[in-house]
């Protein structure tokens, strides 16, 4: 499916569809609460079949956090980008590790470096940092006088 | 000619003439010192040979700095090991820990007794030579298990258990191969076996069953000495270095030495049983050819055959990947043992009917 067809298809079942313009792939913004149901619908058939989650990114925009999921289908070869806006004081989003097993590690990384909490994750703990590390290193306001050198 | 036989005979008569009462004791002492000297020499030569052979197979040069062509490398290594601290782990059983390397070395020395190095050069030509070798070589398992247990290390014990299981299993096939040659010869005495190869080596005279026996024997002794491709217990990159993990310094050197001397011994036995020991290559009734072959001294024949087999075993190590423990035991119990049994029957049939050369 190309961009327009995909857009039409998504508008069918998304509660409040809001698309971002100007990206190389179709980008859709979703509420954190609705992510679980939407993810299941994206994964299952009906011409969507987004079975390959290839990139999970957490972005710190200072006023809010965004989770970016890059999905593609190995059957239809279309790609979708899902963005979820999160409140920096309490960034919680449902996990999708039950739907795409690759998300287990990716979500652990996002938790470790950005502090995004994935509700329902089977084993949410730090991945790269040591278990006792305080703070979320990849955030823009992260201060570490010992390890960070400011130019 | 300057043959070992003459030297040993002359020393023997001189000793009995000079010291009639203590001659036996002195002779034993001399033999003991010779054996220890042989051990040291063998260790030196074999370790260097392994390193050079492996290097040339891996497109590199091996040790070439210490001494001309690297020949003094092992000496340097032995000196280093002698000066290292010999650590005993904390909860180890001190008596068994210290005894284990000696057990392994002593067993290796005992097996040297019936082996004939050259014409007339045998420490003890007992009438059950082959049986003695089989029996005494089984004792080395005790040394290995002792080392594993006394180290107070779970992984040493695991490695020792695996090693023990492997050795005990492969002894069966090795023993059956040996018996098939004994069937042909009709005697357990080493000198008889060699004498029976006067008109040709058993490998050629015994044709098919002898070749099968030989191949099974070589595979079985590679497994017995824990060499690749059966070195799961010691060269594991997943687990520790097997039963000799906790050993350092001179005790480790003894284990290391014992491994290489064991290789020499099993190749010597293979050479004796299948390739004629010190007997030159004779072909049946070609007297001219046989006479020509006799000019090469018997000790040279023996060393040539043994080192050729050692080279083949070293070749195996650098060519094949490792077998997993279950594949290893499968190989023995499901394949080698039935084939050896069947081969033994075949050999007996051939011996009775006289269908060998």
């Amino acid at each position, binding site marked *: 499916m190309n961009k327009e067809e995909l857009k039409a298809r998504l508008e069918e079942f998304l509660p409040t569809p809001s698309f971002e313009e100007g990206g190389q792939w179709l980008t859709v913004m979703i509420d954190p609460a609705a992510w679980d149901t939407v993810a299941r619908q994206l994964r299952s058939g009906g011409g969507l079949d987004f079975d390959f989650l290839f990139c999970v990114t957490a972005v710190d925009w200072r006023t809010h956090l965004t989770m970016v999921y890059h999905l593609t289908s*190995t059957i239809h*070869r279309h790609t979708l980008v899902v963005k979820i806006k999160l409140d920096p004081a309490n960034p919680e989003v449902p996990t999708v590790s039950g739907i795409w097993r690759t998300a287990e590690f990716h979500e652990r990384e996002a938790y470790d470096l950005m502090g995004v909490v994935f509700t329902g994750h089977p084993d949410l703990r730090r991945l790269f940092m040591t278990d006792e590390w305080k703070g979320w290193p990849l955030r823009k306001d992260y201060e570490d006088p010992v390890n960070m050198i400011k130019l | 000619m300057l043959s070992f036989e003459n030297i040993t005979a002359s020393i023997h008569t001189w000793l009995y003439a000079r010291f009639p009462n203590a001659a036996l004791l002195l002779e034993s002492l001399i033999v003991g010192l010779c054996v220890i000297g042989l051990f040291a020499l063998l260790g030196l030569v074999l370790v260097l040979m392994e390193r050079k052979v492996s290097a040339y197979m891996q497109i590199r040069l091996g040790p070439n700095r210490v001494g001309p062509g690297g020949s003094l490398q092992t000496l340097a290594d032995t000196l280093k090991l002698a000066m290292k601290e010999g650590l005993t782990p904390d909860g180890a059983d001190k008596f068994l820990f210290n005894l284990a390397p000696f057990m392994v070395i002593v067993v290796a020395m005992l097996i040297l007794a019936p082996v004939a190095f050259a014409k007339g050069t045998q420490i003890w030509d007992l009438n059950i030579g082959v049986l003695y070798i089989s029996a005494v070589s089984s004792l080395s398992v005790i040394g290995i298990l002792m080392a594993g247990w006394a180290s107070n290390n779970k992984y040493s014990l695991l490695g020792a258990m695996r090693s023990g299981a492997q050795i005990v299993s492969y002894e069966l096939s090795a023993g059956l191969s040996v018996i098939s040659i004994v069937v042909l010869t009709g005697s357990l005495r080493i000198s008889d076996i060699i004498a029976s190869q006067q008109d040709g080596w058993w490998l050629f005279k015994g044709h098919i069953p002898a070749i099968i026996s030989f191949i099974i024997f070589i595979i079985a002794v590679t497994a017995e000495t824990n060499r690749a491709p059966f070195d799961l217990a010691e060269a594991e990159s997943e687990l520790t270095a097997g039963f000799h993990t906790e050993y350092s310094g001179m005790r480790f050197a003894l284990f290391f030495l014992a491994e290489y001397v064991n290789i020499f011994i099993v190749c010597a036995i293979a050479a004796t049983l299948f390739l004629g020991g010190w007997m030159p290559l004779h072909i049946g009734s070609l007297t001219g050819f046989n006479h020509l072959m006799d000019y090469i001294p018997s000790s040279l024949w023996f060393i040539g055959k043994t080192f050729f087999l050692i080279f083949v075993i070293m070749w195996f190590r650098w060519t094949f990947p490792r077998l997993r423990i279950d594949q290893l035991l499968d190989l023995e119990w499901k394949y080698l043992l039935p084939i050896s049994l069947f081969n033994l029957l075949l050999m007996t049939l051939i011996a009775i009917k006289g269908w060998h050369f």
Partner: protein
Amino acid sequence: MIQEVGTTELGELVVNLGPQHPSTHGVLHLVITLSGETIKKVEPHLGYIHRSIEKMCESLSYRQFIYVTSRMDYLSSHINNHGCALCVEKGMQIEVPRRAKVIRVLMDELTRLASHQLWWGAMAMDVGALTPFFHAFREREAINDIMEETCGARLTMNYMSPGGVTFDLHPDFQRKVKEFLAFFRTKIDEYDELVTGNIIFQGRMQGVGYLSREDAISYGCTGPTARASDVPCDIRKISPYEVYDQLQFDEVRESGGDCFARYNVRMKEMRQSLSIIDQLIDNIPEGDFQAKTKAVLKLPKGEFYSKVETARGEFGVYIISEGGTTPYRIKFRSPGFSNLSALDHMARGHKLGDLVAIMGTLDLVIPDIDR
């Protein structure tokens, strides 16, 4: 190196494997729960070589950040740099001259060959055959010498830049590559005889570490790991970049899904790389090796994603730019990260010796995973 960490209530043993290894995988720490000899659970502990590259790149310019990726997957350094350069070019709409494209593809394929060679040597060494390691490095030395003449370095070759390549090819490049191809063709047949056809080797690899097609897609595996489970995922075929759409080569796929299938995929990929280099080496077009670009690059505001096929799988570069001279956020999608997540699934129920074989066929480079 093996150290008991504890015992669970069922009497199972928990052991550590690593982080220091005799094999060349890097600093990977696995905590394995064993019941006797059988593996019950494998848990990777990462972060031993985490250098916070993504955070570092937020203070580097668009010309500088490319070379940090050489240090990530150091065996596919050209290909990583290529991915970053493609992303910057996508953002700035730079047109790369044809000569630069061909040079880039040649360097990529040579790097793929070198990476697969090291993988083959290390894999054989893990399984117990100690000699192929030296043969593999002899071939790698030939490739490294060729690279050294043109790029100036042997491992982290900082050669790609936005707009093309940094230097032109060395005059001897064509001749040396042709000599190398002739030499390597004979060797690869030798390797098949020596290792692939060896019955002990096959016994260690066949039936071990099965990964089904659905699981490969679900775990996000790419590259030879996924192609051995019959997943068509070669970026060079699906979304071709540079001159790949004009070349004749096959996407190698096997349906076995076990270690031996992964091994075969890489061996066949080496042959495909040889054929690609063959097609290009005589037809390097004349022209510029670099497009004209400003000294200081500024990407427009927006997001850009580019993917390339490294020796391990799909390497993705995701740049979020706010219009400045440094990126706002960069995310590197590394292939090893997702491949590693499938290790637990593949290794359950196997023996400890099989785990080493599985890790070998996954071809993990830990700096790539940890970033």
